């Protein structure tokens, strides 16, 4: 079991450019979560999919951020027109169902917006 895979591990973009982050959950896990981690804000929930369907996106900034899960083997987080304040580590996690079950985190993608 390779665990949750996230690519790329590091991404540097210029202000105004687009960034797409990829996540491959653990096979058999039906819940996928995206989080953003910064020193100031800590670990912030962004969005949650269950069986590929979007369930809760209450943490997603309303503009510029979008997430998809086109199949059970991967999810993407897209940030349009990136801004310096988007610089963070973006973590993807998966679990058997959600909520009370253990979440397995990927290594994260460190996004730096110049």
């Amino acid at each position, binding site marked *: 079991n390779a665990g949750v895979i996230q690519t790329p591990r590091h991404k540097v973009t210029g202000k105004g450019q687009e960034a797409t982050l990829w996540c491959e959950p653990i096979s058999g896990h039906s*819940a996928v979560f995206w989080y953003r981690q910064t020193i100031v804000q800590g670990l912030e929930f962004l969005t949650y999919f269950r069986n590929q369907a979007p369930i*809760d996106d209450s943490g997603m900034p309303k503009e510029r951020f979008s997430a998809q899960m086109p199949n059970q083997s991967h999810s993407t987080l897209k940030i349009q027109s990136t801004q310096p304040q988007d610089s963070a580590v973006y973590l993807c996690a998966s679990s058997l169902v*959600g*909520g009370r079950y*253990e*979440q397995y985190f990927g290594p*994260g993608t460190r996004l730096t917006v110049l």
Partner: protein
Amino acid sequence: GDSVTQTEGLVTLTKGLPVMLNCTYQTTYSPFLFWYVQHLNEAPKLLLKSSTDNKRTEHQGFYATLHKSSSSFHLQKSSVQLSDSALYFCALYGGSGNKLIFGTGTLLSVKP
């Protein structure tokens, strides 16, 4: 809404001493509490979890007891090691949604 409070941002200790990291929570649902540990440049990993009132749960020398009467789930270890230096997150699943609510984290730094 649901919330988790970790009062210590940084805890610095000498190897071999005991430690307690505080975690309190608020929820109107039946709580499920977790402790996650994140070592430098690594992903967070589950350390402990519990939903049973007044029952101690242990793993890797760490232990915690969920006390619903005081809404607490403090993490303890009797003798810290250098390898315990990491960021510790307390998290709550309260049933009001599908996500975990994380505390702000406590950085534990163990000195020789």
